[in-house]
C-alpha cells in the first residue's frame, strides 16, 4: 500500500502531439482516485504512464515515495485491469491468475493458497479449470480482477474495466469493485468516461479535458461547485444548462431579460460583462401558480419513469428541467420556475472559469 504522486507529468508523442500537458496529483494511501473525461482527454495515457506502459516525457511519477519513471512495469508493484480483460486465452483461469506469481518465483503452495483465496473473494472457484472463452463477460471481468488482487500490489490500475459489460452487470460490478477496494485498502486509480461510475466510485475525482486537469475534488465538491464550464456540463446527468448572460450588478446576472440572483458571484465585477450562467436541471423547481419566478415555455417532455425531462426555452435559450413525474400536468405549455440563488453558477464567457467567491471555496474545504 502506498501513495501515488504525479509531479508535472507530460506526454509528448513522436509526432509532437501533447497528450498530457503537465498533470500534478497526490493520491493518498488507500485512496480511490477516478480519472474521468471525454475520449482523447489523456486519462488513459496518464494511467498507462503510471503503469509504465508509456514512457514519461517529463515530470515524475512516484509510488510509495519511490520515483518509478525508469522502472519496468513488473517492478513497479502495480496490477492493472484492462478494458478487454486481456486474459491469456490458452491458459485456464487458474493459470491466468497464477501467471504473475509464477514469474516472480513465488513458491507453489503459496501461489495455490493465494489463487484459492482470490477465487473465493470473487466467487469464481467453480471456473478455475475453465478457459476464459468458456466464461461470460462478467466472469472474465472477475478473473481479470483476480489476476490483479492475487499479487497484493501497492496500486490497482483500472482502465475502463466495465465498458464491455452490459448495463446491469456494470452496476453490479461497480458496487463490487468499490467493496473490494474498501476491503483490501489498496490505492486505486480508475479511468472511465462514465460520469456515474466516476461519481459513485471515487474518493477523489479528477476531471480531465484536453490533456489537462480541469478539477480535483471529492465527487460532492465537483458536483456542487464546478470550477469550469466544462466540468459543469460533464458531471451531472442530464447536463447542466448553460445560458448566455450578463453581469447585472453585485450578486445578480441577467439572462435574456430575466434577472437571476447568484450567491457565489463575487462583488465588484463590472456590469455588462459577458458570462455563462449554469443551472442544473434537477435543482430548479416549478413555482406555485401566481408566485414570482422565471417563465419557462415547454416544447416537449421526455418521460423517464420516476422523473420527467421538460425541454423548452428560458430567457430565449434552450433549457432542460427535471421534475418528478406528475409535478407538471400533461399538456401544460408554460410554467414559472423558482431558481434558488445558491444553484446559479456563473462562468467567464471567454475562459470558462468559474466566477466565484474565494471565501466560499475555503469555507467548503474547511
Amino acid at each position, binding site marked *: 500500500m502506498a501513495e501515488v504522486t504525479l509531479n508535472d507529468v507530460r506526454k509528448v508523442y513522436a509526432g509532437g502531439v501533447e497528450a498530457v500537458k503537465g498533470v500534478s496529483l497526490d493520491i493518498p494511501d488507500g485512496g480511490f482516485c477516478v480519472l474521468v473525461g471525454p475520449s482523447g482527454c489523456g486519462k488513459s495515457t496518464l494511467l498507462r504512464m503510471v503503469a509504465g*506502459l508509456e514512457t514519461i516525457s517529463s515530470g515524475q511519477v512516484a509510488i510509495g515515495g519511490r520515483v518509478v519513471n525508469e522502472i519496468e512495469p*513488473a517492478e513497479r508493484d502495480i496490477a492493472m485491469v484492462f478494458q478487454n480483460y*486481456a486474459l491469456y486465452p490458452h491458459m485456464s483461469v487458474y493459470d491466468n491468475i497464477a501467471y504473475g506469481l509464477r514469474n516472480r518465483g513465488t513458491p507453489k503452495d503459496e501461489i495455490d493458497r493465494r489463487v484459492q483465496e482470490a477465487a473465493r473473494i470473487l466467487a469464481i472457484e467453480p471456473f478455475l479449470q475453465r478457459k476464459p472463452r468458456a466464461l461470460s463477460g462478467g466472469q472474465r471481468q472477475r478473473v481479470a480482477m483476480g489476476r490483479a488482487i492475487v499479487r497484493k500490489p501497492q496500486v490497482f490500475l483500472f482502465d475502463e474495466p466495465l465498458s464491455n459489460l452490459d448495463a446491469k452487470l456494470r452496476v453490479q460490478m461497480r458496487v463490487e469493485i468499490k467493496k473490494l477496494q474498501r476491503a483490501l485498502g489498496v490505492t486505486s486509480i480508475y479511468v472511465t468516461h462514465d460520469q456515474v461510475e466516476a461519481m459513485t466510485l471515487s474518493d477523489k475525482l479528477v476531471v480531465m479535458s484536453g490533456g489537462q486537469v480541469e478539477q480535483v475534488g471529492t465527487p460532492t465538491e465537483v458536483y456542487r461547485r464546478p470550477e469550469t464550464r466544462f466540468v459543469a456540463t460533464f458531471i451531472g446527468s442530464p447536463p447542466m444548462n448553460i445560458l448566455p448572460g450578463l453581469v447585472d450588478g453585485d450578486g445578480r446576472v441577467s439572462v435574456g431579460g430575466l434577472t437571476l440572483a447568484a450567491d457565489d458571484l463575487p462583488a465588484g465585477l463590472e456590469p455588462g460583462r459577458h458570462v455563462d450562467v449554469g443551472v442544473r436541471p434537477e435543482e430548479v423547481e416549478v413555482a406555485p401558480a401566481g408566485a414570482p419566478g422565471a417563465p419557462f415555455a415547454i416544447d416537449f417532455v421526455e418521460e423517464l419513469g420516476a422523473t420527467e425531462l421538460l425541454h423548452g426555452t428560458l430567457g430565449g435559450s434552450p433549457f432542460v428541467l427535471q421534475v418528478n413525474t406528475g409535478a407538471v400536468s400533461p399538456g401544460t405549455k408554460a410554467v414559472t420556475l423558482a431558481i434558488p440563488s445558491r444553484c446559479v453558477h456563473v462562468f467567464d464567457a471567454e475562459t470558462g472559469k468559474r466566477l466565484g467567491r474565494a471565501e466560499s471555496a475555503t469555507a467548503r474545504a474547511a
Partner: protein
Amino acid sequence: MVERKHWFSTLLPHAILILGVLIVAFPVYVAFVGSSWDAGTIANGTMPMTPGPYLVENYSRVILSGNATAREPVGPMLFNSFVMAMIIALGKIAISIISAYAVVYFRFPLRKTAFWLIFITLMLPVEVRIYPTYKIVADLGLLDTYGGLAIPLIASATATLLFRQFFMTIPDELVEASKIDGAGPWKFFKDTVLPLSITTVAALFVIQFIYGWNQYLWPLLITTREDMQTIVIGIKKMLVTQDALTEWQLAMATAVLAMLPPVVVVLVMQKLFVRGLVETEK
C-alpha cells in the same frame, strides 16, 4: 437459414464433389493398379483397370532390393527425403517465427527495411538464385550432405509473412498484461505467442513438409552420391533408361510409397487443424 430439402439440391453438390474426387483419385488409382502387374502386361499398351497378382512381389522388390536401374532400394531414399523435408519444414518454422516475432514486437533501427528485405525474397525462388546458391553450398563443402539439401531452402518469406499477420492479431493488451505480470520477451514468446500460434505452426508444417518432400531440381543438382538421393529423383531415374525396358510396375510402386509420408503428415496434422478451427477464438 431454413431450407427445404429437395432431392435435387442434395444430389447436384454430391455429383460435383464425386466427379472432383474421381478426377483427383483416378491417376492415383492407376498408379496403384500399375504397381500390381508385371512389366509385360503394362508394356502391352493397355493398362488393366483392376489390381493384378504381382502386388506383393513388386513391393518387396522395391523395398528390399531395388531394381536394375537405380540400385538403391527405396528405403534409404525415403529416409533421405524424410530427413530433408523435416529439416526444411522445422527450419522454416523456427526461422520465420523468430524473425516475425522480431519484426512485430521489437522496435529497432531499420525494422521496416528488414521486413521489406524479407518480403522481397518472395521474388527470388530457388530456380532464380540457383547458381550462386550452388556455388556457396559447394564452397562450404556441403554437396551430398543433408545440410546442403535442406539449408538453402529453409529461409522463407511466406512463412514469415504468415506469422507476422497472425502476431498482429494478438491484442496489444496481452503484451501489456504480460509486461505487468513480469514476463520478459522470451517468456512472452514461450508462454503466450507460441501456444497461440500452434495452429498456424501446424498449417505451415504441412505445407512446408510437402514442399520439401516434392523438391526435385535442387536435390538433383546437389546430390551425386546415390546414397544421398531422394525419392523423387529415384522415381525419375527409374523412368529414364537407355537400353532396358522401363520397369513401370516398380516405378509405380515407388511412386505409391513416395506418396505415403505426406499423406500421413496431412492425416496426423488434420486433427490439430480441426481442433484449431473449432477452438480458436481470441
